[in-house]
């Protein structure tokens, strides 16, 4: 009889206990893989949305990039750029398109057709808790900011706006609704999506309409730049920055990128926190079940020591059993993760997310299972191997 045969036989000796241990490890694997399936795709799709837009990078006032008093670049109290810079940058070699965009924010709350902005004389940049981003950009340039109208049409005059899907839900607006911003009423002509849920909480109007509204005539918050074919966007961004060393700064990410990355980090951290909790629970289950297994077999371990088994052999047997349970749990955990994610997908709770397996994710799952198996098995195995044969033989 081979040693490994004995280990396998021991695994199936107490089926309910083994099933419990497998479930414990599988919970950890399923949590890591299942949440990984969701968060990986969320990160990828968001990053794709952030980088796949028409604009390769943005140009902002260099004061903002040095850590001004405002929020993200181009928001709140951020320093603006003269609109004439848009034309200048358009002339830089390698630039395909340069578009000016004005960004601000307003507290619109949830009240219908009424501006709730307060402290500022313009009504912008007041209460951060329920701020709505207001973007001014010409309708022909919407694609430069990854804005796609999914319902209705783009605005065609200064009295019209389009509203992001998230903002529309929050403010209860639809195509045809009116919305009041800083005492001026606009008609909603379309709902837009950017593929970035943070940017979908804004309202977009023509650049001149927002400039008039904020009193920032002839100024923009940022310039969206697209490099011509064959031009390296990073090199182009450096060139532009060198041309305006004291005035402008380039950012290869769009203004919402930092916030989006922060959001993704929060999601990722949350997923890891849940996974770690599941791993902890799984680990405790494995340790408890293996300890119970060792306890039930105390006398047997004493006999094995009496007939000549070394401490190392006993240690190997218990860890071996834990590892076999881990291998079974890898399969169960992976199936569980895929099954649960597929079922959730059917309910449309994961709209826009297309979970897909990666080798790294599978390796993470295997790593978790082996970690739990070894950690869960090592203490009971150590205890078993250190048992005095005479005490173990006396055990009832």
């Amino acid at each position, binding site marked *: 009889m081979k040693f490994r045969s004995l280990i396998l036989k021991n695994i199936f000796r107490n089926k309910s206990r083994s099933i419990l241990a497998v479930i414990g490890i599988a919970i950890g694997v399923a949590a890591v893989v299942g949440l990984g399936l969701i968060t990986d795709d969320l990160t990828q799709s968001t990053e794709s949305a952030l980088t796949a837009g028409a604009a390769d990078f943005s140009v902002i006032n260099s004061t903002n990039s040095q850590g001004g008093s405002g929020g993200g670049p181009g928001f709140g109290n951020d320093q603006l750029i003269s609109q004439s810079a848009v034309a200048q940058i358009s002339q830089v070699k390698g630039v395909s398109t340069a578009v000016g965009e004005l960004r601000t924010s307003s507290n619109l709350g949830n009240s219908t057709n009424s501006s709730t902005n307060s402290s500022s004389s313009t009504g912008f940049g007041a209460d951060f808790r329920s701020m709505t981003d207001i973007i001014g950009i010409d309708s022909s340039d919407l694609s430069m900011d990854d804005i796609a109208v999914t319902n209705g049409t783009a605005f065609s005059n200064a009295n019209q706006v389009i509203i992001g899907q998230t903002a529309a839900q929050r403010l209860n607006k639809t195509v045809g609704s009116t919305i009041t911003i800083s005492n001026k009423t606009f008609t909603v002509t379309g709902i837009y999506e950017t593929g970035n849920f943070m940017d979908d909480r804004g309202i977009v109007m023509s650049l001149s309409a927002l400039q008039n509204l904020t009193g920032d005539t002839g100024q923009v918050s940022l310039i969206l730049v697209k490099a011509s074919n064959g031009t390296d966007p990073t090199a182009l961004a450096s060139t532009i920055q060198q041309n305006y060393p004291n005035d402008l700064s380039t950012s290869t990410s769009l203004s919402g990128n930092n916030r989006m990355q922060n959001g993704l980090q929060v999601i990722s951290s949350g997923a890891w926190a849940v996974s770690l909790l599941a791993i902890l629970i799984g680990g405790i289950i494995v340790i408890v079940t293996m300890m119970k297994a060792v306890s039930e077999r105390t006398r047997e371990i004493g*006999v094995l020591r009496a007939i000549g088994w070394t401490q190392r052999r006993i240690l190997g047997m218990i860890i071996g059993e834990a590892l076999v349970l881990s291998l079974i749990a890898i399969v169960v955990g992976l199936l569980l993760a895929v099954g649960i994610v597929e079922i959730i997908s059917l309910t449309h709770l994961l709209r826009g997310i297309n979970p897909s397996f990666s080798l790294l994710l599978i390796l993470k799952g295997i790593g978790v299972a082996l970690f739990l198996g070894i950690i869960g098995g090592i203490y009971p195995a150590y205890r078993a191997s250190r048992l005095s044969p005479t005490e173990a033989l006396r055990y009832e």
Partner: protein
Amino acid sequence: MNNENIIEIKDLKKTYENGVIKALDGINLEVKKGESISIIGPSGSGKSTLLNMIGALDQADEGHITVAGKDLMEKEDLSKFRLNEIGFVFQLHNLIPNLTVLENVQTPLIETDIPDKKMEERALEILKSVNLSDKINQKPTKLSGGERQRVAIARALVNHPSIILADEPTGALDSKTSDIILELLLDIHKKENVTLIMVTHEHNVAARAHRSIYVLDGKIKEENINSTS
């Protein structure tokens, strides 16, 4: 050490609970190779402790004990010594319930480097000698008490030990089965010239050994050469 002696014990002492309980209090004993000894005495007299010392399951506090040429007072792992020199038979057989008879007998051999096929051949041979060839694929739970004890004896013999230590081998059996098991042990002892040391409560069992040792309060109080052996 006398070449004829397989066990030499001099002034062996063992206490438990910080010296409160004197399990062995100066044991002196010599056992010749191929001899059979019975250790008899009331519960708590120290007879099982003495057996555990000889089987290297426990270590003494003081004195000297040499078994099969090995100084058991040395602080080292004695697993290999037990594997090669000692065969244990317990009162409650202590077989592994989820393994078959054949697999139970092979368990000591897992610790050796004997090939699987050879391992199985040796186990089958031993099981034949204890008349269990027809039960090799049975689980212990399907066997009678006597059959289980025969499996335990087969497991004790599979490594060809020089000493068999039997702790109350017939204690859990009825008188008829007890006789059969005792005869089997004595038969193996004679045929294999293996030293047999039995701990027992029963005087009729003790009398079947060459020599009986009466242990009381951790000391050997009396030694008898048995004429019936």
